[in-house]
């Protein structure tokens, strides 16, 4: 393959160390750079409004549902499928949950207990319905063999209609207590230092986790006898990551009185950690990448392809259910127009985050960063009073250019221009969000959209 032959020679010295700084490589760091650039750009042009605590909280709360969806979507896309139904599924689950909670009442119980039960039952019902919808779609994809595009296109219509059927095409309000998962905050406690105490504690926990993770990864690297990055690399990386964590903590802790790091953000964080671990460190995660990378080879390695396909599709709908509930909690009601176009936002996030259209490549962390790029862009343009018409045009172009640049550089046999610094992978036991992307795949010339066009002629001389 000429692509492999013309690969850039190994860099030495400083560049290599620099790469080790963010060892783990992949396109996400290129996108991370783009995200930082966009944030700085808007911070300057909005006179500091972008990184204002109130705006940040809005940003998280207003986009949590897309970021949550992106986590499920990246697994679907890595496995080689697509899910167009997530918006409709979210809306359908939302309306059922709202309806159920509206109908519940526990006359015998005290007020607090009653509302707790209502919310609890509502959430459980929502997740169960998500799982049922997922099992339905997963069955069609995995066991009947209908392409996911078709199954979920049908699901898109089916569950949109079901939403309007259940809700009679009207909005249904949700109880006050339910709103905390979409727009709530941690209750403040303890002495008043002018900061939100729970946010500080949360920040401190993350700091400890990041340091512990870095240490663990060095220990593992030593055990694996891999070339360990020099200590200063670890320290510099820690300093950078911790600075971001501490900065974010202080920002979120100094918002309006009564606010903290939002609950929706915490839910998101837990999901990112959990699913990064799942995709990176578990057998089912490996199987998803194996099926997406080469399903026939996976099948001949004993992977149960149907189970994997069923799992990713079912899981996606459960996540869509969660996204739907976060959304109705934030908007205080479930309506017939909820979730329209969400699938496209989630899919864009995943592709901006470095996933390959042909499957087999993609990471949870990358998709979250991709989702944040869209979110910050949305938010910043709104702050600059750019109209919705132009915002859409800009978002479309960003998606096209992000993937286009990637495909182009792969076809040139170079690593992605934006991922140039980060091609080498090191030890990878890490799952913390700021530190390490999950399931990293080295960018390859045969990956992604370029695959079909640059496949070299038959290499095997056959007589």
């Amino acid at each position, binding site marked *: 393959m000429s692509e492999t032959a013309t690969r850039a020679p190994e860099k030495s010295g400083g560049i290599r160390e620099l790469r080790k700084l963010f060892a783990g490589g992949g396109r996400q760091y290129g996108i991370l750079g783009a995200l930082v650039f966009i944030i700085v750009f808007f911070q300057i042009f909005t006179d500091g409004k972008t990184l204002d605590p109130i705006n940040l909280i809005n940003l998280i709360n207003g986009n949590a549902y897309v970021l949550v969806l992106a986590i499920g979507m990246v697994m679907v896309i890595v496995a080689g499928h697509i899910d167009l139904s997530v918006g409709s599924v979210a809306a359908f689950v939302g309306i059922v949950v709202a309806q159920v909670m509206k109908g519940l009442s526990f006359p015998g119980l005290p007020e607090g207990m009653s509302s707790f039960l209502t919310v609890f039952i509502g959430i459980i019902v929502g997740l169960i319905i998500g799982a049922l919808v997922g099992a339905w779609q997963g069955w069609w994809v995995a066991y009947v063999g209908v392409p996911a595009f078709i199954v979920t296109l049908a699901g898109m219509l089916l569950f949109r209609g079901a939403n309007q059927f259940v809700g009679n095409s009207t909005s249904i309000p949700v109880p006050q207590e339910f709103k905390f998962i979409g727009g709530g905050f941690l209750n403040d406690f303890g002495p008043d230092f002018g900061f939100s105490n729970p946010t500080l504690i949360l920040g401190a926990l993350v700091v400890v986790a990041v340091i512990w993770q870095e240490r663990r990864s060095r220990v593992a690297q030593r055990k694996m006898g891999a070339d360990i990055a020099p200590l200063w690399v670890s320290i510099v990386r820690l300093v950078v990551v911790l600075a971001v964590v501490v900065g974010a903590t202080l920002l979120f802790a100094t918002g309006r009185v009564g606010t903290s790091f939002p609950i929706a953000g915490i839910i998101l964080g837990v999901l990112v950690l959990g699913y990064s671990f799942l995709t990176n460190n*578990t057998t089912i995660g490996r199987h998803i990448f194996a099926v997406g990378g080469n399903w026939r*080879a996976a099948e001949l390695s004993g992977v149960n392809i149907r189970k994997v396909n069923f799992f990713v599709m079912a899981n996606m709908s459960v996540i869509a259910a969660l996204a739907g509930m976060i959304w109705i909690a934030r908007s205080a009601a479930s309506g017939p127009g909820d979730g329209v176009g969400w699938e496209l936002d989630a899919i864009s996030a995943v592709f901006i985050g470095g996933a390959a259209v042909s499957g087999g490549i993609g990471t949870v962390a990358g998709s979250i960063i991709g989702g944040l790029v869209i979110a910050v862009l949305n938010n910043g343009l709104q702050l600059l009073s750019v109209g919705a018409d132009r915002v859409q045009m800009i978002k479309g172009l960003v998606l096209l250019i992000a993937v286009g640049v990637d495909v182009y550089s792969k076809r040139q046999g170079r690593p992605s221009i934006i991922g140039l610094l980060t091609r080498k992978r090191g030890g990878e036991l890490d799952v913390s969000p700021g530190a390490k992307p999950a399931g990293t795949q080295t960018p390859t010339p045969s990956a992604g959209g370029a695959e079909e066009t640059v496949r070299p*002629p038959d290499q095997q001389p056959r007589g």
Partner: protein
Amino acid sequence: MELEGNSEPTILEMRSITKEFPGVKALDEVSLTVKVGEIHAICGENGAGKSTLMKVLSGVYPFGTYAGDIVYQGKTVKFRDIKQSEADGIVIIHQELALIPLLSITENLFLGNEPTKRGVIDWVSAQKMARDLLARVGLSDDPDTLIKDIGVGKQQLVEIAKALHKSVKLLILDEPTAALNESDSQHLLDLLRGLKGRGITSIIISHKLNEIEAIADEITIIRDGKAIETLNVRDDGVDEDRIIRGMVGRTLENRFPPRIGDVGEVLFEVKNWNVRHPLVADRMVVKNSSFTVRRGEVVGFAGLMGAGRTELAMSIFGRSYGVFQSGALFKDGKEIKVTNVQDAIDNGIAYVSEDRKALGLNLLDDIKRSVVSAKLSKISKGSVVDKVEEYQASERYRKSLRIKTPTVYEGVNKLSGGNQQKVVLAKWMFTDPDILILDEPTRGIDVGAKTEIYGIIRDLAAQGKGVIMISSELPELLGVSDRIYTIFEGAITNEMSADEADPETLMKSMTSTEKRAPKL
């Protein structure tokens, strides 16, 4: 005779063609002279370089990617693609037909070459021309019939009609009768004779030596990328045995490891194995096959392409191919149930595919993840993969199999064919198999790596494992195996120990159904 030979005009002269792939010299100074109006056969084992030579000729491998000259109709030609060679009247018909099943005969005939009137396809004259062309190849089917509704034999004829439409002067057929039955083959050969009468020159690549003997004027034999000899069928009194001798008659170099270790008791047995084609209900691809593998033994399977070797192997490996009909598997004398790949792995059966890129590896993955991918449970607690153990396991194989790579973090797509093959071997050795089925384990890799792989195979046998090796290369089978089965048209035709086998007997059993009594 010499004089006579020189006076006949030649249509094609390929001079000292050399074509290299990374690590493999597919063609080494091959020269080929084809006279006007003759049928010229090219014979050789699988992988000898026949198809590569034809791809060079037709521009599939463009000018500049090979060394040497091609002189066609007196002029040196430099084809950059297949369009240019077609414009000069060279048409190649590949083994896999290039017809579109859901289009009609007419549409296929004129695909890319449609007769138009003011930019619009002129279906009326297309129909008329189609009937004409079909008549010339002896087909009377309605030109509106879809390609998928006519048999392979007729499809082959449609391909030839398509070539006639392009006013072909030199027709190249790659294994034209491989998929045809006796009468279709006969019809095709008659047609070739008819074309010859009309002055069309043909080059035919075929494994069916009886057909070649019957139809060819001259035969060029290619072996290991070199043109060995050109025989004149009438003058030289060529028969099948003579061709076989040319195809296999090389001396075995000293590149095979010694057979060490003792062959033990029967480890694995396949009894009366029957498998039918996955799509065609009445076509059996494996017919009543039975064989045994002993501990510490390398059992070779010889057969030509399409004989059913891979189908047999894959159907044993968890019914990965075709539709299982009947048969039983025994390990250590006890019957085992193997209905899917996981069963096969659990029972200690491993299958290394002949197509490592399509079936053996996830090319997006790195070495360490590939090595452990067939038995993740071995390094997982619960369902969490232990990455340290993964690293250590892959590192062990990197060292013991000498996989050439800076680290096991490297992507497998960056490795050479030989090293990729070692990764696949490592992947299956990691599953602790007792029986390894290796399907063309040295295909497309260079000589040095081949020798290393032979060493690995003998090592596995020395450890008491049973190894089944499928190969198209007879020297390799003779050099590495202890015992060899031959397979032809889905049935096992012969069994012999490697010591008493020789290439010519093998080739005979690989090309005929005649069942010989197995030697004891």
